[in-house]
């Protein structure tokens, strides 16, 4: 046992609570840019989900008869809430957010034993549940009217939507004004007869949608850079995930540019960057060795591209992350580093009593 600890002598965030606090700070550029382009609905998502996260965690901890305050101080429930809130379409109804957060905090996290014990990424469990159960509500994104524009949702309309007072998104006169598809969604449902260039020339999306998505992705990238700089995440997962996506997208784009998106389109149009830096890097549910993280990230990248290109969903970060969560124990067994004094790394899960006599 070391009687000295880094936290006593270093300014680096070396405490789980502070690690999470820095993570929250790193989400600010992304959330701010989302809000700038898509309006206050983003903030209502994040705040509600964060509040639900803390509330539900406290509730379950009380039911489990655990101390509440020190556990909440690790900020992990807040992080889950913020990440789920940031992934939801702006202005999502309170009830949807609550369902998502119950799935994330209560089911995916606390029922498995709390922080550190969950095999699946809680935020993505919540997101996947919502996406499958409420596909219409989950695929309608606000048009990028901007935070201050008069075309956007007013505060009153937002409140009505969030509290479920408004009757839904497909009725009423103003609906078309603020809802629409994401670029990935639109491109996926492009008529086959149209070439990509013709499709984009036809202005299928409200003005500025692509630029808004690109800016958001770059903002997440900036936040991710802060995480890397603070050494809160390793470079392995983001790099391997984005590289795998780029390689696959580049390949299909090279084969047929008129029906496939370019690597840049795939990187910057959806949740790829956000997922690569903020979701896939969740250490609890990711592969744990440095080598394993490379495989894990690459697996997510491949799955995202497969589902985007061949699956039923326009974006697939949540599914890809959850699928790769399944493979983590396997990856971990096969990617042990070489221990000093061993000729080669141990592999696999053959659990036999090791022969402790010398080999020579």
């Amino acid at each position: 046992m070391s009687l000295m600890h880094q936290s006593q002598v270093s300014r680096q965030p070396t405490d789980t609570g502070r690690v999470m606090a820095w993570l929250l700070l790193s989400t600010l550029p992304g959330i701010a840019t989302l809000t700038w382009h898509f309006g206050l609905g983003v903030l209502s998502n994040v705040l509600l989900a964060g509040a639900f996260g803390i509330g539900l965690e406290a509730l379950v901890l009380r039911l489990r008869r655990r101390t509440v305050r020190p556990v909440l101080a690790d900020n992990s429930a807040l992080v889950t809430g913020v990440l789920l809130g940031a992934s939801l379409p702006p202005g999502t109804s309170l009830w949807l957010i609550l369902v998502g957060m119950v799935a994330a905090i209560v089911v995916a996290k606390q029922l498995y034993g709390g922080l550190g014990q969950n095999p699946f990424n809680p935020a993505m469990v919540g997101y996947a549940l919502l996406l499958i159960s409420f596909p219409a509500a989950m695929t309608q994104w606000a048009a990028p009217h901007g935070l201050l524009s008069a075309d956007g949702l007013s505060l009153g309309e937002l409140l009505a939507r969030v509290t479920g007072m408004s009757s839904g998104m497909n009725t009423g006169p103003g609906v078309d004004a603020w809802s629409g598809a994401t670029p990935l969604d639109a491109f996926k449902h492009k008529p086959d007869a149209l070439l990509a260039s013709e499709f984009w020339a036809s202005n299928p999306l409200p003005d500025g949608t692509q630029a808004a998505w690109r800016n958001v992705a770059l903002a997440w990238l900036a936040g991710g850079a802060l995480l890397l700089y603070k050494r809160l995440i390793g470079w392995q997962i983001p790099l391997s995930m984005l590289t795998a996506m780029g390689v696959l997208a580049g390949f299909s784009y090279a084969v047929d540019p008129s029906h496939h998106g370019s690597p840049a389109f795939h990187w910057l149009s959806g949740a790829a960057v956000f997922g690569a830096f903020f979701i896939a890097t969740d250490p609890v549910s990711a592969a744990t060795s440095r080598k394993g993280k490379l495989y894990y990230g690459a697996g997510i990248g491949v799955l995202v591209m497969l589902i985007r290109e061949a699956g039923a969903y326009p974006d697939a970060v949540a599914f890809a992350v959850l699928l790769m969560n399944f493979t983590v124990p396997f990856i971990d067994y096969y990617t042990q580093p070489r221990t000093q004094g061993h000729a080669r790394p141990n592999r696999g899960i053959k659990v036999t009593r090791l022969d402790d006599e010398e080999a020579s």
Partner: protein
Amino acid sequence: MARAFDFPGGIHPPARKAASTQHRIATAALPRRVILPLGQHAGQPAEPCVEVGQRVDTGTRVAKAQGLISADVHASITGEVVAIGSYPVPHPAGREETCIVIEGDGIRDDWALLPSLDWRRADHATLHARLDASGVVGLGGAGFPTQVKARVRERNAIDTLIVNAAECEPYISADDMALREHAADVLEGARLIAKLSGAQRIIIGIEDDKPEAIRALERGIAAGQAHPLPISLKPFPARYPSGGEKQLIKRLLDREVPSRGLPADIGVLCHNPGTLLAALQAVRDGRPLVSRVITLTGEALARPGNVEARLGTPMNELLATAGLDDDRLARLIMGGPMMGMELSRLDLPVVKSSNCLIAATLDELPPPPAEQPCIRCGACEDACPAGLLPQQLYWFARSREHEKAELFNLFDCIECGACSYVCPSHIPLVDYYRAAKSEIRANAFEARKAEHAKHRFEFRQARIEREAAEKEARRQARAQAAKRPTSMAANSTTSAAESTAQPQPATADADLKSLRIAQAAAKAAVRKAEKVLARVSQSTSHKGQPQGQSDGEIEDLEVQLATARENLAAIEARLAAAKDAAAGTTQAPTPPSRSADTDQERTP
């Protein structure tokens, strides 16, 4: 020319060595009372060889080494043995151990010195005997008997002696100061050990934050150019734990100590400068190990520094001299802050492995915050100098999945504490690993006990058989001796005698062959037992190891070795008997002689 290789991971804790390196090594006041634990070294505790009431001089042997791995204990003051009994010793769990208590008047200091030896002329046996009689053990913290380590060449060819002057743990400066003041003697001690071990070169590994010690060593090396053995000095940037034996060897030589092996397996021997100094003093000055340099530091001390203290001196006396402020003292640590142990009381004796005492204030080394859940962030993996996955080991240790823990190389953990140091959830990871290791060892020990009983039983069977065989051989010899003259006289009985004797050579040959095989196997078993014993005793004596486990394990292995030896002797006796029997049937009768001893295995 000083190429530096690297080990993975490592951390950079603050050194905090400046406070204790301001002044030269002071000599602590002669204590009036010393408490000498019998188990100040790795291996078996020594056995007292003095009685209560006996007068002893400084340097008189008061306890004798027991078993293969053990060391003598010597009186560290002049006075009278007043008690032999259980006293608290420095131990993480606050254990009591048998100690010899000597009281003097604090003034008289008569030395019982051994005759001075010139190590350049003395033969190996003399030098081994001297180290053995001086109670010199590794002073870096492990406490492995130097004499046992010096005999390593009997099993492994040693090409390099490494002087481990890295002293990478924060606070500790005992080796640094010893090198500044006694560099020449340390180098001579290194040459002495190099001669004993057969090393062809000496490499000094030292962290570059000790410029004065490096200069002193450079001067010492330049002055000793005449000596044929090349000494090279290799400073390298400070990084914890570069003073770990395996990490140091990797860094200096790019050789890796095989898993569960010893440096000797790759031709390397590592010694701490303090140990080399003590070895030289034992040989050149005839001075047994009765004192050591100890760093007294921490912000609760007004006058931190290094002192040469007699073994057994109560720590509170040393701390009081160094200006201990009781009110500010929050925790007392023996050893460094990474691998040391927290002591629960101040009146414990200084022992051979006490290299440092840290009297820390609350601000300096605050108590650890509450343990939080592991989030598998992997900070520990980045810090691990052994290339392990500490986060996985933690899960397996916690859930008692011992087999998986072993599969993930739990036993390659050197318990340096780098993982605990960086863990954002403040998990005392090394505690978990130690608990898992001791549980695994305890299980293995139980299994071995059963095995051991089996060995004993087999041995008894072998002995009964051997006695029966000898008896049979003697009987046959007598019968032959009686038969020969009669067969000369009366031919009529020859055919009958031949018909009974005929099948005998064949069976005897087969017997001989199988016995020779058995003999070879028994010899191999003895050699293996020796090797395992040496290995286990050295690897478990690694710093920070709870003494209790290794003791039990070594004791058991020693019995196993003895059993293997007895087995060998039994088989050799049977072989001799069979040889005699064969000789008796085919040639002239010879008296049954026991030739077993001629083939006796050399004892280590």
